[in-house]
């Protein structure tokens, strides 16, 4: 074994604590070699082991009658009926995307796609939840624009070439993401229920086969990088970022799915974070077997690579599989057809150990289970969630609705994201019934007559004000988005983006957000089937807002979607759920507070989950019965912005709102109270009847009209705008920033 001396410095460089090192020594019964130290350091990194969050993640609901596979595999799996299942998951690629935006985001897409097809499912949709620093920041604006452009073209480059439609997501700008952009990528695939594969090694004596790209020195210690805060030196970590090749991934997809059909594959896992290390020990651990590999047989792109480098490389587009002994040739034949390397590099053994050899000599020998599943587990101290804003806001100035709405629709979070999504192929495979710009994306499953709706949601401002309520609101909104397109929410995946968990006030944010998310997912019956935790999102000690993002999927019968666009003038406008309630404290997290008042205070909007559920039951029935011509849920920006968005989507039809309320106009029009949906309809009585049956208010608030948006409150005109003029601002602002 390697004789490099293990010094306290070396241990610290590997981000292992002295106690963790002691545990390694006790597992091995000896000092580790340098290679073994590297292997432990990546497997026990925060990114791979969830050592700070695992204890709390157990509080999330993971079971349900449609759940075929919950957390612990490469992706969660849900039964969608007719013999088919969907596999889906969300992952973050935050740290690499800051260091190298294009490749960071591209390989983020590549990694999550492999997680899906390693389970036997063909990816049919991708969505992205993105957060950047402000584009017009005087100091960091140029860098933030460069990161935005790089991330978007990286996602486009990878997804477009691979041939998966990128159908939606969210983009938010906030200065807390200046040094820590968030790139969360969600992917979803479909396969026959009988064709699901698991990442489990089995059958002593079976060959372990390496397929796909050759191993190089790229990405070494990527997982550890993702588990530390950024400092001034972080830019030197650029070589830790991997480089993606979407064409190779496409070949890998087709070859893997075809090879799976031979019946000769026992188990398969992609090499993502921690590469060969993670795939070998996790497959071994899940199957309660050992795995022995010979590094000389691993296809290598560079010469002279050490065992340490080969085991820790995060070169992309690689897979590890276990085949039935004697049937290797059937597997090799498929990979040859697709022009890919497929090499037998080892064998499944009965001793439960990961044994790594080079030139016939053992360079690492570690028990799989201890390495993969018995990473240290921390109950990190948590106090009160960090929050540096007051509960009471400023005295609200007299509102100017006429100027506020144009300012809001031209603000970073609310403006059209067309410049982004137009760079994505959102149509390939011809299944996209609703794509970017819809409340939820809808992808039909051609084989079954069922469609899958999906939505990504999160709100860092809400979560900063109250991590628990913010997480609950994200779940409620995601479910509402699905219900608004007529889908029944069935399962969720989550991506938890937080700062440094070693700070008790940050750990408190994480704990409360997980508890809130768990409570809401339990209530809405959307078990979490997997996800990702991204911690240490801090640069120079400044953390991001706690940003729990949830991706929820729903099911519906395949049919033409209702959409958010007003379709005809002269239709009744109905606000399902009513005008809602809001006081000044609950107004502090809104877009109005951010854009117009440039402040943050108080608490997020109040959520009444029972009412939310009733509203969602009602809207599903309304949409599925075809009673509405358009339906759009109210979220960021509140009622006025929602009405404007329906008009923008139509292009010509606007609205006249006549509101009867005592609320101040700013609160009335821009509060973000949940559980509300704006409908246009030719059948208001039928909608009222459905609403009554569900115990939900269906308030008539006006009519659709040609060319303009007008808002009146008790006979007083608050504002009036030409649709085309307002829409031009909405459409062009993002593009004008990035050009």
């Amino acid at each position, binding site marked *: 074994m390697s004789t490099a001396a293990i010094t306290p410095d070396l241990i610290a460089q590997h981000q292992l604590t002295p106690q963790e090192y002691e545990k390694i020594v006790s597992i091995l019964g000896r000092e580790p070699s340098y290679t073994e130290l590297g292997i432990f350091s990546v497997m026990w990194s925060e990114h791979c082991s969830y050592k700070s969050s695992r204890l709390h993640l157990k509080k999330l609901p993971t079971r349900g009658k449609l759940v075929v596979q919950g957390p612990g595999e490469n992706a969660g799996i849900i039964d969608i009926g007719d013999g088919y299942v969907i596999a889906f998951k969300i992952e973050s690629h935050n740290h690499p995307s800051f260091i190298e935006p294009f490749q960071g985001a591209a390989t983020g897409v590549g990694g999550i796609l492999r997680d899906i097809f390693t389970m036997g499912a063909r990816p049919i949709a991708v969505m992205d939840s993105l957060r950047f620093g402000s584009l017009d920041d005087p100091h960091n604006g140029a860098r933030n624009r460069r990161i935005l452009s790089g991330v978007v*073209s990286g996602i*486009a480059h990878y997804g*477009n*070439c*691979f*041939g998966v439609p990128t159908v939606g997501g969210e983009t938010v700008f906030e200065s807390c993401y200046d040094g820590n952009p968030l790139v969360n990528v969600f992917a979803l695939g479909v396969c026959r229920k009988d064709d699901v594969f698991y990442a489990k090694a089995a059958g002593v004596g079976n060959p372990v086969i390496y397929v796909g790209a050759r191993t190089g020195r790229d990405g070494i210690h990527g997982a550890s990088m993702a588990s530390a805060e950024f400092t001034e030196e972080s830019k030197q970590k650029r070589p830790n970022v991997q480089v993606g*090749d*979407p*064409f*190779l991934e*496409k*070949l890998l997809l*087709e070859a893997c799915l075809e090879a799976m059909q031979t019946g000769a594959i026992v188990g398969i896992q992609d090499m993502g974070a921690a590469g060969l290390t993670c795939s070998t020990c996790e497959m071994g651990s899940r199957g309660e077997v050992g795995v022995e590999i010979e590094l000389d047989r691993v296809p290598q792109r560079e010469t002279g690579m050490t065992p340490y480098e080969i085991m820790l490389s995060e070169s992309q587009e690689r897979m590890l599989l276990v085949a039935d002994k004697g049937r290797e040739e059937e597997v090799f034949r498929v990979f040859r057809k*697709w*022009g890919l390397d497929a090499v037998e590099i080892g064998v499944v053994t009965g001793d439960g150990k990961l044994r790594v050899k080079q030139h016939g000599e053992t360079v690492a020998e570690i028990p799989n289970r201890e390495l993969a599943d018995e990473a240290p587990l921390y109950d990190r101290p948590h106090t009160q969630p960090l929050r540096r804003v007051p509960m009471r806001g400023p005295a609200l100035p007299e509102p100017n609705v006429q100027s506020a709405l144009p300012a809001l629709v031209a603000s970073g979070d609310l403006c059209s994201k067309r410049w982004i*999504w*137009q*760079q*994505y*192929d*959102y*149509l*390939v*495979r*011809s299944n996209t*019934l609703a794509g970017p710009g819809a409340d939820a994306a809808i992808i*039909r499953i*051609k084989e079954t007559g069922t469609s899958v709706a999906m939505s990504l949601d999160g709100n860092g401002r809400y979560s900063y004000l109250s991590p628990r309520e913010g997480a609950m609101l994200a779940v409620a909104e995601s479910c509402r988005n699905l219900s608004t397109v007529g889908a029944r929410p069935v399962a969720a995946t989550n991506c938890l983006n937080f700062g440094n968990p070693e700070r008790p006030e940050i750990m408190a944010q994480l704990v409360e957000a997980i508890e809130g998310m768990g409570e809401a997912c339990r209530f809405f019956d959307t078990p979490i089937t997997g996800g990702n935790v991204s911690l240490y999102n801090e640069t120079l000690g400044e953390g991001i807002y706690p940003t729990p993002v949830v991706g929820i999927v729903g099911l519906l019968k*395949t049919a*033409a979607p209702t959409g958010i666009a007003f379709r005809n003038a002269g239709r009744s406008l109905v606000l399902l759920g009513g005008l809602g309630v809001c006081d000044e404290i609950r107004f502090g997290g809104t877009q109005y507070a951010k854009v117009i008042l440039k402040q943050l205070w108080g608490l997020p909007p109040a959520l009444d989950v029972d009412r939310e559920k009733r509203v969602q039951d009602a809207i599903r029935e309304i949409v599925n019965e075809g009673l509405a011509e358009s339906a759009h849920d109210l979220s960021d920006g509140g009622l006025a912005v929602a009405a404007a968005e329906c008009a923008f989507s139509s292009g010509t039809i606007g609205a006249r709102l006549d509101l009867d309320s005592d609320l101040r106009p700013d609160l009335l029009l821009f509060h973000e109270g949940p559980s509300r949906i704006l409908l246009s309809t030719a059948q208001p009585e039928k909608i009222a009847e459905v609403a009554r049956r569900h115990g939900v208010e269906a308030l008539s608030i006006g009519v659709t009209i040609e060319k303009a948006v007008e808002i009146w409150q008790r006979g007083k005109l608050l504002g009036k705008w030409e649709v085309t003029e307002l829409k031009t601002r909405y459409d062009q602002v993002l593009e004008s920033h990035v050009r």
Partner: protein
Amino acid sequence: MTFGVIVFPGSNRDHDAVYAVSNVLQQKVELIWHDSASLGSVDAVILPGGFSYGDYLRCGAIAKFSPVMSAVKKFAADGGLVLGICNGFQILVEAGLLPGALIRNRSLQFVCREVELRPGTTDSPFTCAAKRDRTYRVPIAHGEGCYFADERTLDELEAEDRVAFRYVQNPNGSLRDIAGILNRERNVMGMMPHPEDATEPLMGSCDGLVVFESMIAAAVRA
């Protein structure tokens, strides 16, 4: 009628083409692998969208050397119908079956959206079912779709009535708004927009059917 859809390793709209032709139009379809030296007994060939061999060098620059392209050239020379969509158009141009080049969009960005097309001619097996007085809504999805050729070639295309489709609003900087062209013999057409992705009400438009219906009508006449 039997359509052959060529599958390069990086083709990704092959499924879309197959679905449109078989499920929507109820025609027979055969997939033809890129290293086949023969096309079998198909009546028409579709080169689908995608990234043939990754297209890192130049779109279609490697595909033109693939074994199947020799077969496609022979098929075209014998008068067979060849339709190249998006990447397929790029490959036909690289292979010399159509004139000009497809260069990066003027925006330098990939662009995916619906566009309106106007038929440039109805005198072709790909547009004979089209009406000149209306427009067709079909999506585009490409990064290198800006049609480029020298003035003489462009004049020749127009003089010989070989512009199959034009953009109503040019999305990529194509010269003379060209979205699709024909070869001199009029049995080979390349177009950047995706008619296969506009063949059902659920796709938001059925206007792409006109291309396939034209081909079927032309094949019946032949």
